[in-house]
């Protein structure tokens, strides 16, 4: 009995094997082995920052593309992209490392609350309804839509200021928070040498008086920084200063002249006490 069972099962198995082998040969789909290799090198976060549906999509695009123009994994950065370029033997243009920057410094202390919102704790929903709990309709709601979308645990709401703060080490500049913020407060900026950056930490487009009334550290559009800047990196539009990070040379003169402290400097060494004329100017030292 056992012999019959072994033979019959063996026969079924053999027929199946032949059929499967034939089918696999007939319906074989050729996949470039390099796609797998590239995918191996990628971070595997599937965050979509590159503009493709996940890492597999990006790997396929890299392999199929004639040149690597416009293909860059911001999460992996230069390291990963150089690996990809070795695998594919294509030149990769290295992009500057970027980092997410929160352009609102209206903390609870400087931006008094004028009304109370008790709806769904979501920035998108709140901003579709109204301007916000404070007099500044441009500023951060503080409900943390950016925190929710971050795949890398790199942005958190500071419970004291109720503003989001970016963890530079973890931020991969994937841009998810930039898209999630309904107020367009978060911007991707050049990380800069030794992570040193200067930026206007405000997006309030109101005129000086209402902006100041709504928030103690709002940009009031006075234009002092524009005059101070020797490199024409600062532009003033709609009562709001903006520093072009491609032109900024990190001299920090604008930081010193800003009357409201809206311009922030990050990761600079502490200033030395300098010439007497600098005395009396408020030294703004803020870290996010």
């Amino acid at each position, binding site marked *: 009995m056992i012999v019959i069972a072994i033979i019959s099962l063996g026969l079924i198995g053999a027929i199946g094997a032949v059929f499967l082998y034939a089918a696999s040969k007939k319906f074989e789909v050729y996949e470039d082995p390099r796609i797998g290799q590239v995918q191996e090198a990628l971070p595997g976060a599937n965050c979509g920052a590159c503009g493709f549906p996940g890492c597999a999509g990006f790997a396929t695009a890299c392999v199929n593309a004639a040149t690597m123009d416009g293909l860059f994994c911001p999460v992996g950065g230069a390291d990963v992209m150089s690996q990809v370029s070795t695998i594919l033997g294509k030149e990769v243009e290295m992009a500057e490392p970027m980092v997410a920057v929160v352009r609102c410094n209206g903390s609870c202390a400087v931006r008094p609350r004028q*009304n109370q919102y*008790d709806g*769904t704790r979501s920035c998108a929903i709140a901003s579709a309804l*109204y301007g*916000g709990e404070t007099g500044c309709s441009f500023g951060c709601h503080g409900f943390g839509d950016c925190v929710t979308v971050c795949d890398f645990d790199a942005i958190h709401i500071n419970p004291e200021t109720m503003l989001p703060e970016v963890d530079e080490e973890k931020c991969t500049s994937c841009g998810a928070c930039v898209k999630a913020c309904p107020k367009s407060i978060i911007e991707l900026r050049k990380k800069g040498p030794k992570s040193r950056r200067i930026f206007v930490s405000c997006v309030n487009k109101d005129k000086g008086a209402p902006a100041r009334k709504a928030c103690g550290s709002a940009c009031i559009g006075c234009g002092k920084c524009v005059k101070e800047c020797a490199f024409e990196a600062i532009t003033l539009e709609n009562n709001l200063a903006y520093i072009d990070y491609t032109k900024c040379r990190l001299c920090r003169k604008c930081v010193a002249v800003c009357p409201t402290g809206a311009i922030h400097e990050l990761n600079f060494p502490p200033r030395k006490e300098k010439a007497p004329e600098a005395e009396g100017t408020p030294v703004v030292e803020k870290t996010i």
Partner: protein
Amino acid sequence: MLKTFRIGGIHPPENKLSAGKAIQTLALPKQVIIPLSQHIGAPATAVVKKGDEVKVGSLIGQASGFVSANIHSSVSGKVNKIDNVLDASGYRRPAVFIDVEGDEWEEAIDRQEGFVKAFDLTSKEIVQKITDAGIVGLGGATFPTQVKLTPPPGNTAEILIINAAECEPYLTADHSLMMEKGNEIMTGISLLMKAVHVKKAVIGIENNKKDAIAHLQHLQSNYHGIEVMPLKVQYPQGGEKQLIDAVMRRQVKSGALPISVGAVVQNVGTAFAVYEAVVKNKPLFERIVTVTGKEVLNPGNFKVRIGTSIQTLIDAAGGLPENTGKVIGGGPMMGKALANTEVPVTKGSSGVLLITEKEAKRKPVMSCIRCTKCVNVCPMGLNPTLLMTTTEFTNWDLAEKNHIADCIECGSCSYTCPSNRPLLDQIRLGKGKVMGIMRARKS
């Protein structure tokens, strides 16, 4: 058996506290702030500058496109400045500030109180006068009226439906207007009928306004082709598509305009504004606003000039009660909480509702228990709980397939949910996203 729309609907407590109260005219304020965007569509362009003298009814904002509306001064005096002002939703929008001096009206406006019935104008002239007067839908949607009266080519109107449902709880502005200005409204309707070339008009009134129904039914014999139709009290009967279904038993297809089923819908307040614009040459610069609330000392209906602050209105009704939780612009179902009370009355302000702290509080959100109450009450036949979930998971394809863009934001789903889920909040967000995607695809 009274008619109503066939799908969904709710019946919240009516609370028409100011029903039967006569319209009171509010004293002129010292300053008015007239926003340049009081309608759906492109904001008007200011045609006055600082220091200009204006009269009541002077044009101060010119419509800047087809879907836009003229803005007129509601007072006489001097233009103080043109600056951004906080609107009801807490955003700054351009507005004209006018310091009031006297009460001098433009000469063209007929200030006689008497009712004039005779008119001899062509359809085009009527539409032109409505356009000039800057009339928008006064039910709250503020869609420019002349656009609705100019059907797209290939469509003809069969019937004019006058929306007098006033299905929102608390609000009684239209009710009081119908009681006091019945003849004017009927004439306005006749004018609108002529403008869209229809022989028949139906006034849909909910049956909780029996006196208004009786009053208009008494008048209808004097006017040709106008019928008063009492409707069963059901929210949101004042929705355009719901009213068409109730009156005509026809459903407007998803994404289509009411004209596709041969209907033009206008609010009863709009009909009165049309009468004033066409017969009396009076632009739209004042309207009836209900100020109400359970704790309000003197709830009532007030005739106010556009640009008067909401605070003035609240003071006229006896001041802000101590335990007020929220001040709502509009009715309790579709109205929005105001971020502050110094905002001006606009063309779309139908009411100011002061609700108590206890009523204003949102209850804690619990899990969906799949009871399908929201599905049963949705007047558009949508599946609110599914639409909320698709929005939460940003699955816009699925949301679009389930017709999220058809949501009329009536809030019946949120009202009825036993788990207090913020259905409308999420759906409104998803609707905005999906409509953005649909627009991007089209262009």
